[in-house]
C-alpha cells in the first residue's frame, strides 16, 4: 500500500447517469433522512462503476447529495483501496500478487502487464488497458488469478493473459473462469483421492452397537 492521493488531472464535473442515479436513490432510500451519509460507500462504488474511477468532482457531488462534509467523503474514498483514485483503461486488470498466486506464476503475469501496458495505473495510449496489483482475491485454489470487470480469470499463464488481452483489444467478449477448462475449483486432471466407489455405496458400513442405546423394544 502506498499513500493514496487524488489524481492530478481531474474532470471538470461529475454527474450520475440516469440509471446510476436511480440506483443511488435506491441506496439512499435505505437510510433515514438525517443519516444519509451511511450511503457514501455504495454511492462511491456506483461512481466508480460509471466512470471506472473516483474523481474529485464525483466525491464532491456525492458529499453534496448526501449532505455530508466533503472531507468525510474524501476520507472514505482514500481509506478503501478498492476505490481507484486515478483514471483506468477500458479494461482494468487486477492481478493478484499475494503468496499463493505469486508461487503459481503471478510474477510472470505482472511482468507481462508491465511490458505490454506499462507501470501500474498507467493507461495505454489507446485507452484500452491499465492494470494494478491487488491483494488476495480469495481464489487461491485457482491461482494465479486476475480480475477483469468484476469477473475472475483463473489458472492463468502469461500466454493465457496475453490471449485474453488480444481478444479484449479486438473487442471480443471473454469468458471468465479457468483458462485450463477446469470446472470451478475441482482438482486438476480429475479426481485423485477418495475415488473408491465403496466409500459411497454403503458397503463399508459396519454395524455398531451404541453402548448407551436402550435395549430394542423398550
Amino acid at each position, binding site marked *: *500500500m*502506498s*499513500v*493514496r492521493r*487524488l489524481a492530478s488531472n481531474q474532470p471538470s464535473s461529475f454527474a450520475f447517469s440516469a440509471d446510476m442515479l436511480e440506483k443511488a436513490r435506491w441506496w439512499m432510500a435505505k437510510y433515514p433522512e438525517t443519516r444519509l451519509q451511511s450511503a457514501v460507500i455504495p454511492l462511491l462504488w456506483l461512481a466508480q462503476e460509471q466512470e471506472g474511477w473516483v474523481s*474529485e468532482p464525483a466525491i464532491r457531488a456525492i458529499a453534496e447529495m448526501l449532505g455530508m*462534509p*466533503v*472531507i*468525510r467523503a*474524501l*476520507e472514505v474514498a*482514500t*481509506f478503501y483501496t478498492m476505490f481507484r483514485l486515478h483514471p483506468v483503461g477500458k479494461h482494468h486488470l487486477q492481478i493478484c500478487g499475494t503468496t499463493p498466486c505469486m508461487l503459481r506464476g503471478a510474477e510472470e503475469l505482472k511482468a507481462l502487464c508491465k511490458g505490454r501496458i506499462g507501470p501500474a495505473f498507467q493507461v495505454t495510449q489507446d485507452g484500452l488497458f491499465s492494470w494494478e496489483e491487488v491483494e488476495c482475491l480469495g481464489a487461491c485454489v485457482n491461482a494465479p488469478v486476475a480480475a477483469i470487470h468484476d469477473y475472475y480469470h483463473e489458472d492463468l499463464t502469461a500466454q493465457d493473459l496475453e490471449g485474453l488481452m488480444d481478444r479484449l483489444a479486438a473487442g471480443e467478449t471473454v469468458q471468465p473462469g479457468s483458462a485450463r477448462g477446469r470446472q470451478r475449483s475441482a482438482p486438476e486432471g480429475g479426481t485423485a483421492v477418495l475415488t473408491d466407489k465403496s466409500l459411497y455405496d454403503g458397503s463399508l458400513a459396519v454395524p455398531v452397537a451404541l453402548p448407551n442405546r436402550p435395549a430394542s423394544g423398550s
Partner: protein
Amino acid sequence: MAKILVDGVEVDVPAEYTLLQACEAAGAEIPRFCYHERLSIAGNCRMCLVELKGAPKPVASCAWGVRDCRSGPNGEPPEVFTKTPLVKKAREGVMEFLLINHPLDCPICDQGGECDLQDQSMAYGRSGARFEENKRAVEEKDMGPLVKTVMTRCIQCTRCVRFAAEVAGAPEIGATGRGEDMEITTYLEQALSSELSANVIDLCPVGALTSKPYAFNARPWELKKTESVDVMDAVGANIRIDARGSEVLRVLPRLNEEINEEWISDKTRFAEDGLKRQRLDRPFVRRAGKLTATTWDEALTAAAKALSGDPARIGALAGDLACAESMKAALDLMAALGVANLDCRVDGAKLPPGPRPAYLFNTTIMGVEDADAVLLVGTNPRIEAPLINARIRKAWLRKPLAVGVIGEPADLTYRYEHLGASPAALADLAAGRSAFFDILKNARRPMIVLGQGALARDDGAQVLRLAGRLAAAAGVVKPDEGWNGFNVLHTAAARVAGLDLGFAVGLTAAQQIMAANTGHLDTLLLLGVDEMELPRAGATVIYIGSHGDRGAHRADIILPGAAYTEKHATWVNTEGRVQYGRRAAFPKGEARDDWAILRALSDRLGKTLPYNDLQSLRAKMMADHPSFAGIDYAPGAQGSERFDPASLGEDGPVTAAPLRSPIEDFYLTNPIARASATMAACSEAASARRAVHRVAAE
C-alpha cells in the same frame, strides 16, 4: 456515584466518569495525547493505558467507563493501577511506537519547550529507540495564513479533526488514507473557514500544527507572560500575552469557563502584529493642513486651548477600544469643564444608558448552555462574537435547541429557522403571529439576542421596543427562576463600560458630527474613534488613541495613547463582567497611558482631576459607579425583578430595511486588526473563499 480504587486510593466518582477522570480525581497523573476534555473521545493514541484488575491486558483509560468495570468476586470496588511495571512498560512501548515516525527535530521545532510529546517522552519514554528503518515523511499541507504545518511530526491524535467538526462547526479537517499512510489535511488544502481555526495550534500536542506568524520567533522560556483580557470583541476573552522586551509576540487563550472556556478567536490571537504597525508614537499637531510631529508640551497646550472655549460647543466621543479608566477621566474632565455632550455609542446604537439589564447579555455566556430556545435579532454571532456562537453550537449539539433568526441568513454552524429579514418579522413575532412565538413562550429558558445591527439604525429605538415587547409577551424574563433571557450582544469592548459610566448624555455621536459639520460644535475630543464618519474640516478634533487610522487622519491634535496590551485597564464585557487587563509592554515611543494624558490635560486647563495614580482613579470610579467594584462578576439575572423590557425604546413605525450585522469583515473590525498583516491575509483568503462560493452558487 461509584467507588473505585486507584493505586490503593479509594475515590467516589460519578459512574459515567472514565477511568482517566477517576484516576485524576484520585490524584494520579495519566499521560495522554488524543484525549481532550472538550472533545469527543477517540482513544487512538494509547498513551493513557492503565492496568485494570481482572482485565487481560492494559486498557485505554480515556475510553473506559468506571461503570464498565467489574467489581471483585466479593463485591470489592474495581481496582486500577497506574504505577505498576505493566503500565510503565505499556507507556514505554506506546511512546516508542509514536516516536518511530516522529522526526527528532526538536531544536528547529516551534513547539519545543511546550511540547506534550517532548515532555511525555522525557517522563514516560525509553531512553532510546530500537527502530532502524527509514522514517516516514509526509508532505506539508497548506492550511492558510494562520496554521503552519509540518505534517511529518503529526502523531495522528485527531484532536484538530475533532475540534473543527465539533467546536468550530467547520468540518473541514480530516484524516485521509489509513495506517501508516494516514495524513491530516483539509479538503484540497484549503484554509479553514472558521473564525476559531487557530485553536488547533494549541490543541496540537506536537509541532505538526504551529502558528505561522509566530514561526521561528521565540522560545517559550524567553517570553514574559502577562494575563490579560481581549478587546477585539465584547466577549472579553481571557488571554495571556507573551512579550519579549517591548514587543508582543503572541496571544494565547487563558482558561475561563464562564467566558471563553479555552478558545479564542483568530482575530484575538493574531491581530497582535497590528500593535507594531501604524502606531502613533509621538504627539502631532496640524499646521497649515499638515500633521507635524511636536512635543507633549505643545500638543497639550494646543489641546487645552481648543477645550477652553464655550463648553456648549464642545463634544466628546469614546470609541470601541477605549478603556474604562480613560472614559472615566474624560467624563470627569468634561464634567469639570461643563461639557454636556458625551457619547460612547459611536455606531449609533439606540441603547439607553440604563437600567443595566437593558444593555447587557443577561443570560451570561455560560447561561447560553442552559437555554432551550434562542432568537437572534439583527446579529450574526459567528462574526460578532465567535465564542458566544461556539456556546450556542455547544448547546445545540447537546440537546434540542430551537434557534430562530431575524436578519440576514448566514452559516452559523447550527441549524436555525429563518423568520424573516426585516423588523416586520419581529413585529409579527411580538404580536404572537408566528409559531416561533409559542416556542419562546413555552421554553423554560428562552433567550433573545439583540445585535447592534438591530439597534444601530434610524429606527433602532423602535426595533428595541418591539424586541422588548416580545420579551415581555413571551415571558423571557423570569426573575423568580433567576433567569433574564433578554440579551444585547455588543461588538465593541468599550461599549458596556461607557454605558455603565454614563458616557452618553447630550448630543449623540451622529448629532455631534452633524453639529460639527454645521458649525455648532468647535471642538471634538475623540477617545480612539475610528469606526464612524468624522466631521469635515471646521471643528478642531483632538484624538487620543494608539493607531494612525481614520480618527488620526482627520485629527488636528493627536495625543498618542496606549494600546490594550500596553496599559493596566478595566474592561467590561457584554455580560457586564468587569475584568482587568494588564500591561505586557510599554507604550510605543512617547505615547502614554490614556488616563494620564487626560490627567495632564486637566492640569493645563486648571481643572486638575482628583487622582494622581491608577489606584485612586479606580477607587473614584468604583465609588461613583459601584458596578465597577464587582470584579470578574457577571450580574446575570440580578435586578431583573425591576426590569421591564416592554418599556425599552420608543413607539413608532419601523422601516422595511433588512436587519444586518454591523460587521462586514470579521478580520478588520478595529484599528489594530486593520494594521495587522496577518488579518489582511485572512481577510483576503476569506473574500476569495466567498467569491468561490458565489461562483459555485451560480
